[in-house]
């Protein structure tokens, strides 16, 4: 059993984890940067300890400082949250060295699952479709050979990373050398690893993913699937559970594939398996594994009633999962909208500032995960996420309507927000009918969108 958990993160997820710790009867210690001493997480944790100055490189990205914070405060476990160092295998390694339980997979399992090329190979070995594409590409020449066989356009992707960095579309053979070099350089800079592989570019793709929990003792269950097709520059904007309107068999296929794949990896903790669903061909292809908690985990919680963060803590403490697969019966429909401190009319430029006003929605089927409160200052050091507004309703249309209502009851002054933009997205006929793909926001919606006057 664990006793005291260091939360190596900030913002809404630090609040979320602190509350889950308390629900599990654990003490929560929050590592904060100098800029976050007064944060909501620091207020809610049993203790906050300042680890370094505001820049993340000297605070939330510094594994040594995080471990020092854990050890000097007597923590016996560390929860990495998402982002920052949560996907760096050096973190579970450092935890193991310091005798601190890492809330997540072992470094080895993180490497197995986190590397895209390795994970693709593992999926292929299990007979899970991985989509047309390549293994690691040695050179631009090899890339062109593979692409000639697949047919253009193709997508170059970084083996090590995510978030769109190192990812480039190649329209034809002529541009392959230049794009290959650029993508490899970008991947090298972002992840310290310039290796690339290739996928066929899917014209009308949906992003579908499966939330998996593995207890590290052989038990692996899923919490159903999610749809995260609404993205802008590879950043998810709106996430749903379940993924409605999949072609027959696809939903069961990805659930089965995800549990088998994670089950093959000696994995412990929460993981997400991402799939690309080709709406035209009615096929699914495994994309990658996220070996950590994800921003959009609440939608799975809403439809299943399972608290993912508490299960993470239970697993790390050696307890069995509190649910069996048979207990998991997703009910209704949940949608999450990420609301950022950004100005949609200025190219979504992040806009730090002090929250002169912060009134969040509430009511039946409404949940807000946030670290905001009136008077809190959004600093420029970190991402611009203000809140995740999550709703649960009986079906998708009711959930869409409820989410729009909830966003209308979000009152913010002091920083611009993307709430109005998201409300417009939710009202669009293509979204209501589910006829969107992963580039719909950028290619169809954003170009035609203009902010309403006096919102």
């Amino acid at each position, binding site marked *: 059993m664990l006793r*005291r958990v260091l939360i190596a993160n900030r913002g809404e997820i630090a609040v979320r984890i602190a509350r889950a710790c308390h629900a599990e009867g654990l*003490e929560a*210690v929050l*590592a904060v*940067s*100098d800029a976050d*001493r007064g944060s909501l997480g*620091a*207020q809610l944790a*049993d*203790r*906050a*300890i*300042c*680890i*370094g*100055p505001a820049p993340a490189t*000297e*605070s939330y990205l510094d594994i*040594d*400082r995080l*471990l*020092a*914070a854990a*050890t*000097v*405060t*007597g923590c*016996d476990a560390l929860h990495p949250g998402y982002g920052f160092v949560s996907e760096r295998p050096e973190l579970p390694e*450092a935890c193991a*060295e*310091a*005798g*601190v339980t890492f809330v997540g997979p072992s470094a080895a399992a993180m490497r197995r699952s986190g590397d895209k090329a390795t994970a693709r190979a593992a999926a292929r070995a299990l007979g899970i479709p991985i989509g047309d594409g390549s293994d690691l590409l040695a050179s631009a020449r090899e890339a062109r050979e593979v692409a000639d066989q697949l047919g253009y356009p193709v997508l170059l992707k970084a083996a090590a990373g995510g978030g769109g960095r190192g990812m480039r579309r190649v329209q034809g053979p002529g541009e392959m050398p230049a794009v290959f070099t650029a993508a490899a350089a970008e991947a090298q800079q972002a992840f310290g690893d310039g290796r690339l592989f290739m996928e066929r570019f899917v014209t009308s793709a949906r992003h579908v993913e499966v939330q998996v929990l593995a207890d590290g003792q052989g038990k692996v269950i899923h919490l159903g699937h999610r749809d995260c097709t609404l993205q802008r520059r590879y950043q998810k904007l709106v996430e749903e559970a379940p993924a409605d309107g999949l072609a027959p068999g696809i939903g069961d296929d990805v659930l089965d594939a995800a549990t088998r794949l994670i089950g093959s990896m000696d994995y412990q903790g929460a993981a997400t398996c991402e799939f690309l669903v080709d709406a035209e061909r009615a096929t699914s292809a495994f994309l990658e594994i996220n070996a950590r908690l994800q921003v959009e985990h609440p939608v799975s919680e809403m439809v299943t009633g399972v608290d993912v963060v508490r299960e993470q803590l239970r697993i790390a403490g050696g307890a069995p999962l509190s649910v069996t697969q048979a207990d998991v019966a997703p009910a209704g429909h949940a949608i999450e909208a990420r609301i950022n401190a950004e100005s949609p009319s200025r190219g979504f430029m992040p806009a730090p500032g002090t929250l002169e006003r912060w009134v969040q929605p509430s009511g039946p089927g409404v949940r807000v995960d946030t670290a905001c409160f009136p008077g809190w200052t959004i600093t420029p050091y970190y991402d611009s996420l203000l809140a995740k507004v999550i709703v649960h309703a009986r079906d998708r249309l009711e959930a869409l309507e409820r989410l729009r209502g909830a966003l209308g009851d979000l009152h913010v002054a002091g920083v611009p927000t993307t709430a109005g933009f998201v409300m417009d997205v939710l009202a669009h006929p293509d979204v209501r009918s589910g006829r969107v793909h992963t580039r719909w926001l950028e290619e169809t919606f954003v170009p035609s969108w203009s902010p309403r006057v006096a919102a």
Partner: protein
Amino acid sequence: MKALLQAFDQSDWQEMTVMIGGDRLHVSRLGSSDGPPPPSAPQPAGAVPPPAPEAAPPPSAPAASAPPVSAASAGSNGAIEIPPGTQITAPSVGLFWRAPSPGAPPFVEVGSPVAAGETVAIVEVMKLMSHVTAPVSGTVSAVLAENGQAVEFGQVLVVVDAEA
């Protein structure tokens, strides 16, 4: 901390070399530890005898016991009164050490003269030793953390009365 020191104790390391900025720190130890777990304090260049726990001044507040979680959001020095003068703060979370090694005399005491750039303490971050140096020349008027104590980033460690 207990876990860290246990891991350290249980390791079979005899020497440790740490690079900080341009400084190179080297620790070597012989024999087994005893008593309260010894701080893994460094020693510039060269092998030194095994640390004697009681030599670390002051001997109170063993660093190795898990400090009880306090509701107070630390961040500052809490209730400690800070005298006027130039404040030298912790560059990171970590453990505060007054001496280069447990057996050695402290870098400074209250009343010690210090020169700008001189080391007044060490903050240890997972075996990485950060020298904390005086930004001005003057006289030490306060040492506000105890040897082996956990400190936070920004916490005032030492106060120096700058020379006029």
